[in-house]
């Protein structure tokens, strides 16, 4: 026999809202061995009764009733408490399903029985919460639990699935109160949460957190915001005082604890501003407040307080203090004063008095007094501005000159603004700044600019600054406009306009140079390029651009200059040089021809003479009898002429050596002069020229080649004749011994004179003023004279003509 007592667990009984717990509940079922142990049965019956009574009591206390529902008969058995729950007297009347149904709140009726049916069909235990309407009309909320279902008695062991529930057993509890309490609790909880959230938000907004510090356990509790203030996260775990202490700035740590100790001892709330260091090293300033809670014995048990992060406020305060300082300091440095003018009076700041050189003790000046300070030339316009200000409430911004009482001239910039509040004019406020230095600088700058512009205009050099990538012009001097054929007065022009003036043939080059320079970030110079002016003229420009290293890419500053004139001058110089070269070449060619012709003539004369004499000689010999005397004479002439030819050649050769004196002999200068004079007299006569000679008695003899000396005289005398051939005149030859015992000869004419500045050049080879001249005469003369250690020069006469001089060492010197 097995024990047939089944104790079923009462599901759902363990409810938190119910103070008393019901662990198990059960019924003792039928027993097969009642007969066998009657006493036991009776004892058990007693126990059951007791148990029932206890159960009854428990149910009553817990407002839990139980019920049985016979699904076949639809009979319902309620416990007493169930009746009470439903607002009836216990066992007042028998119950059936219809009665129960009747009492269920109409709104819940359908849903309740549908869910029960569904549970039964599914074989599960129905559980339901529903409202009932008590006979008194009171509505209560029920919670019903099915804890047991009986099927048909297990006659034979068939499968449970095939069993059909026959009877249900369960409990019902009146949960109206607990529902209400729960609802209230939830509402409270919601309020609390909301208020917590608001607090949290408020804390976050003001960066304020709070803490609780249990002074007995040492335990510290922080609000979430406090974690954040300290740069921590609430998830970082509990806080202890060691950690808090560590996070306080070392310089503030001692003070903070001293103050909190004092608060704990004295009971006076602690307040401390101190710094903390966040784990990431950031320093924050916080303001802490703390109050101490005491227990019944008066011992300090807990400290509660708030901590506010005031870093930003401190910073703002600092910034404000700084800005105020800067403002006042700035005004002082800027020499700026301020003033106000309204119904309540006329205010001047100290700085304004200082600017105007007035004494603050005398108070703000009247308009008339102020105008007296103003420079006479500005006075009327300032008076007009003040008048407009007072009458039409018009502000102004102007530069005015004042003369301080000490006589100093100052430039002031005065700005005035009308004050209008809610559409009503209240007066004026204004500032006055001493801009003397700036003004003088500006004037200086304007002058400098004027000078620069003038210089640029004179030199045809313009300056500019531009960005070639963006095409922006920063600065273009007037001269640049003019160089490109624009009028400066016509206003700023786009860079592209300047580009368009570049000669189409030169533009690719200019662009290439620029592009290269921009990308290589280097300076550039375009030595020469052409631009076309609107009237078709071509101008040559040169431009130099320096990269602005401080600027953006493509920023260049530079100059552009007009090299047209220079180019023209260069071309002219090239042309002249070419002509000179051509002339020199032609001269040389002519000279060669002339020399050859002269040489031929000079040599042919003696040769002709010799040949002819030889022929004559032969003919004298052919006479019968031969005329030997004549033949001999002819032979000696042949010798003479042949020697003459050799002499000519020697003389010519000596001209082209550097005058190596050969065949020197003592020469009587007086004789040479007489010879040459007589030789050239005919030529002189033809041109109405008189030859005079003034040979001083001290004129020394010299040692020289007579042919060369003749050549010297011949050249200089012919030169003099040439100078007078169209006008006639006098040729004077003077000779004497100079202070250094040298022969000194001068040959003067009264002719056209020397070309200015050509006194030296006339001795240069190929220099000639004569259409037919070789330009060699004076050159040869000089080379001969210098070969003897002498000197030759020329100078213009006081009156007409020129004088040529030469010196030669005398015989004694030359002999050494």
């Amino acid at each position, binding site marked *: 026999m097995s024990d047939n007592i089944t104790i079923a667990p009462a599901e759902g009984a363990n409810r938190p809202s119910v103070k008393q717990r019901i662990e198990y509940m059960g019924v003792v079922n039928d027993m097969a061995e009642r007969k066998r142990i009657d006493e036991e049965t009776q004892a058990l019956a007693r126990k059951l009764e007791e148990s029932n009574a206890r159960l009854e009591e428990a149910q009553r206390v817990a407002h839990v009733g139980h019920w049985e529902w016979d699904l076949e008969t639809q009979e319902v058995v309620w416990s007493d408490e169930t009746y009470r729950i439903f607002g009836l007297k216990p066992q007042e009347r028998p119950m059936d399903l219809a009665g129960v149904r009747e009492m269920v709140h109409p709104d819940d009726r359908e849903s309740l029985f549908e869910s029960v049916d569904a549970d039964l069909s599914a074989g599960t235990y129905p559980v339901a919460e529903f409202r009932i309407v008590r006979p008194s009309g009171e509505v209560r909320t029920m919670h019903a639990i099915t804890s047991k279902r009986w099927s048909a008695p297990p006659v034979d062991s068939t499968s449970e699935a095939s069993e059909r529930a026959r009877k249900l057993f369960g409990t019902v509890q009146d949960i109206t109160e607990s529902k209400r309490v729960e609802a209230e609790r939830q509402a409270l909880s919601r309020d609390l949460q909301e208020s917590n959230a608001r607090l949290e938000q408020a804390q976050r907004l003001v960066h304020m957190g709070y803490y609780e510090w249990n002074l007995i356990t040492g335990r510290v509790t922080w609000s979430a915001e406090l974690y954040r203030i300290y740069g921590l996260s609430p998830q970082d775990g509990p806080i202890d005082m060691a950690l808090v202490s560590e996070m306080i700035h070392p310089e503030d740590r001692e003070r903070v604890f001293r103050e909190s100790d004092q608060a704990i001892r004295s009971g006076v709330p602690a307040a401390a501003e101190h710094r903390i260091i966040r784990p990431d090293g950031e320093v924050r300033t916080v303001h802490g407040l703390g109050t101490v809670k005491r227990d019944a014995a008066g011992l300090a048990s807990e400290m509660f307080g708030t901590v506010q992060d005031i870093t930003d406020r401190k910073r703002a305060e600092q910034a404000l203090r700084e800005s105020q300082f800067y403002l006042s300091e700035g005004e002082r440095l800027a020499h700026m004063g301020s003033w106000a003018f309204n119904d309540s009076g006329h205010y001047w700041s100290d700085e304004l008095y200082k600017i105007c050189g007035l004494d603050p003790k005398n108070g703000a000046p009247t308009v008339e007094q102020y105008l007296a300070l103003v420079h006479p030339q500005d006075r009327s316009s300032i008076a007009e501005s003040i008048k407009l200000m007072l009458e039409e409430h018009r502000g102004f911004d102007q530069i005015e000159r004042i003369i301080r009482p000490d006589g100093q001239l100052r430039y002031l910039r005065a700005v005035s603004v009308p004050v209008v509040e809610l559409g009503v004019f209240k007066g004026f406020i204004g500032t006055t700044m001493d801009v003397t230095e700036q003004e003088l600088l500006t004037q200086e700058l304007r002058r400098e600019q004027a000078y620069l512009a003038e210089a640029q205009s004179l030199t045809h050099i313009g300056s500019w600054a531009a960005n070639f990538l963006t095409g922006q012009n920063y600065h273009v001097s007037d001269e640049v406009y003019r160089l490109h054929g624009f009028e400066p007065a016509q206003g700023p022009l786009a860079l592209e306009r300047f580009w368009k003036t570049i000669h189409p043939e030169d533009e690719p080059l200019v662009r290439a140079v620029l592009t290269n320079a921009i990308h290589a970030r280097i300076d550039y110079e375009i030595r020469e390029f052409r631009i076309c002016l609107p009237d078709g003229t071509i101008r040559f420009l040169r431009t130099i651009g320096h990269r602005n290293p401080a600027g953006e890419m493509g920023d260049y500053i530079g100059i552009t200059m007009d090299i047209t004139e220079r180019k023209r001058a260069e071309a002219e110089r090239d042309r002249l040089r070419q002509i000179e070269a051509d002339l020199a070449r032609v001269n040389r060619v002519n000279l060669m021809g002339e020399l050859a*012709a002269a040489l*031929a*003539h000079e040599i*042919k*004369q*003696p*040769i*002709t*003479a*010799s*040949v*002819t*004499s030889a*022929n*004559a000689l032969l*003919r*004298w010999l052919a*006479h019968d009898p031969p*005329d030997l005397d*004549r033949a001999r*004479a*002819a032979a000696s*002439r042949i010798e*003479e*002429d042949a020697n*003459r030819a050799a002499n000519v050649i020697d003389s010519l050769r000596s001209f082209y050596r550097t005058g190596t004196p050969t065949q020197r002999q003592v020469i009587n200068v007086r004789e040479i002069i007489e010879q040459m004079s007589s030789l050239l007299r*005919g*030529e002189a006569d*033809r041109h109405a020229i008189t030859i005079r000679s003034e040979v001083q008695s001290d004129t020394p003899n010299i040692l020289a080649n007579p042919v060369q000396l003749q050549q010297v005289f011949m050249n200089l005398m012919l030169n003099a004749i040439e100078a007078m051939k169209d006008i006639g005149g006098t040729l004077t030859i003077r000779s004497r011994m100079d202070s250094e015992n040298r022969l000194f000869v001068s040959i003067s004419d009264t002719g056209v004179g020397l070309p200015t500045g050509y006194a030296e050049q006339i001795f240069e080879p190929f220099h000639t003023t004569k259409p037919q001249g070789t330009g060699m005469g004076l050159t040869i003369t000089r080379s001969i004279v210098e070969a003897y250690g002498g000197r030759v020069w020329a100078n213009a006469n006081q009156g007409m003509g020129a004088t040529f001089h030469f010196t030669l060492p005398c015989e004694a010197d030359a002999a050494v």
Partner: protein
Amino acid sequence: MKAAAVPTVFIVDDDGGVRRAVQDLVESVGLRAECFATGQEFLNKKRTSDPSCLVLDVRLPQMSGLDFQRNLADLGMQIPIIFITAHGDIPMSVRALKSGAVEFLTKPFRDQDLLDAIQQALQRDRAAREQQGEVHDLHGRYLALTARERAVMGLVVAGMLNKQIGSELGISEATVKIHRANVMQKMQAGSLIELVRIADKLKPGLR
């Protein structure tokens, strides 16, 4: 022709050597020679009626030989000229020859060339002188004519008939015949043709 006449060669050259050599050469062939350094000196010389010629250097100190040649022509002095030069060129020689020079020799020249030229020049001078002598004779005859006879002679050589001449001069044909006979006789002309030739020779002098 006067056989006694000794031809003279005048030499003008600024180079003394050349001057003397040419003089010697000329004298070696039995001619007379006279030297001058300049053209002016030559002009100052009184000329004889003897045949002569001039050996002239082109390059002279004052005036070139060519200019001197033109000067002589302007002065009416007719003398054959032989130019010698140390540096002559073709244009110069052409100009000289066109102006009547006998020869243009460049220095140094072959003696025979010069002597040949001199001979040619003297021959030419001789012929010129002869011609000049005949004209002089005819001119004398012409001067013996009366004014009427000269007028008649002019019209006769112009080819007019006696009748026409009489009509022209307002005289009778018979009178014309008398004048014409006188002219023929005084001018020593054997025929009309001869008279015309005489008139031709006289023509420059008649102008």
